[in-house]
């Protein structure tokens, strides 16, 4: 059974296995197919039209399915690997071990944002950024450069306390747990973390940075925590609703999985600590 662990608790061997599996997916071309898929949804999910991956109730089950597929690809390289999660309420500094040269490498240099240490630096030769929105083919970051702080545990807890999963109009203007977690409204959790990392993480091609998976694994864990705190609440909308994925509708691009199928993560993996 796959156990997703806090990245801060990984052993040196676990870190190396994870990095090596990422590099192999990149080498084989498989990695970039995930970046392409993500950007296609980022560009087509709109507040007033069809929306599946973002700014909609299915933000959480869509990314859960997306991460499961990615984790399976990693495990096809090395069955020992599981996706770690990044608890940015605790590891909230550019000096955290997450950003050390033996793991993801650090922030970008000021001139052009280029990450210049670790396995994902362009100078290491194994991480070309090919699916991109501009001409720069190297991984970029600007950790915390906007002067913004990562969300605090108190801010996370305030969002976890919201009892309603999502509300009409089921988009970036919605009240409720999903949109506050996604960050279009209120204290801003998920979106703010993308901005804090900067570089490709602030763009539609954000999965170019391996931290994308650890950020979303933590968002996914927060969904599980919310479920544990609100056993009487569930995914909404339950009935068919125009332009959005209701509980029993299938989600693109898989077309064989519904939000209902994604509610129980323990069928696929567990977390190192109870929700």
């Amino acid at each position, binding site marked *: 059974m796959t156990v997703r662990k806090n990245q801060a608790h990984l052993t040196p061997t676990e870190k190396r296995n994870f990095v090596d599996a990422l590099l192999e997916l990149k080498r084989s071309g498989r990695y970039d197919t995930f970046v392409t898929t993500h950007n296609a949804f980022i560009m087509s999910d709109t*507040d*007033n*039209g069809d929306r599946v991956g973002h*700014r909609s109730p299915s933000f959480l089950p869509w990314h859960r399915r997306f991460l499961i597929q990615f984790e399976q690809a990693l495990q096809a390289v090395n069955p020992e690997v599981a996706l770690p999660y990044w608890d940015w309420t605790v590891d909230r500094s550019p000096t955290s071990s997450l950003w050390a040269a033996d793991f993801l490498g650090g922030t970008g240099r000021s001139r052009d944002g280029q990450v210049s240490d670790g396995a994902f630096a362009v100078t290491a030769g194994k991480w070309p950024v090919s699916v991109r*929105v*501009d001409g720069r083919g190297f991984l970029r970051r600007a950790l915390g450069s906007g002067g913004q702080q990562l969300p605090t545990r108190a801010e996370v807890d305030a969002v976890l306390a919201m009892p309603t999963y999502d509300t*009409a109009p089921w988009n970036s203007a919605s009240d409720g747990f999903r949109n506050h977690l996604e960050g279009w409204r209120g204290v801003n959790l998920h979106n703010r973390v993308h901005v804090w990392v900067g570089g490709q993480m*602030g763009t*539609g091609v954000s999965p170019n940075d391996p931290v994308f998976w650890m950020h979303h694994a933590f968002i996914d864990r927060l969904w599980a925590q919310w479920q544990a705190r609100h056993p009487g609440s569930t995914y909404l909308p339950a009935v068919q609703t125009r332009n959005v994925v209701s509980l029993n509708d299938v989600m693109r691009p898989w077309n064989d999985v519904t939000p209902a199928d994604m509610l129980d993560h323990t069928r696929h993996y567990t977390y190192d600590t109870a929700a």
Partner: protein
Amino acid sequence: MSQLSRRRALGASATALAGLALTGFVRTAAPSGPPAAEHGNRAHSPGGSGHTPTQPKPFDESFKGRRIQGAPSHHGGHHGVGYSVHIDGEELHVMQNADGTWISVVNHYETFTSPRAVARAAVVELQGSQLEPLL
């Protein structure tokens, strides 16, 4: 079905905006203020009443050495956006949020009050790099 509804919404926007075009740039709500729950629906729904959709006028200027342009595009809009932005002639994919704020593909998780602000933010983010052609 959604393509049709988007087009209808754009048509309604164009009609409602006809009188506004002369009054100049329309500022949207501050991005930090949480929008009222129904605001997004009302602002864009064809049957909505009493609330004017926010759409800025065209712009064309030089910013930090780059030419940035924005204009309504009722026909050629990417994904039916209805407003297109270019940097040095290459299209920047932009999108309007339900509360009237804007984002672009290079600043996708941060909202801006106008397409001009989103174009300027993109210029800063690009650090001189050229946009890739949209897929």
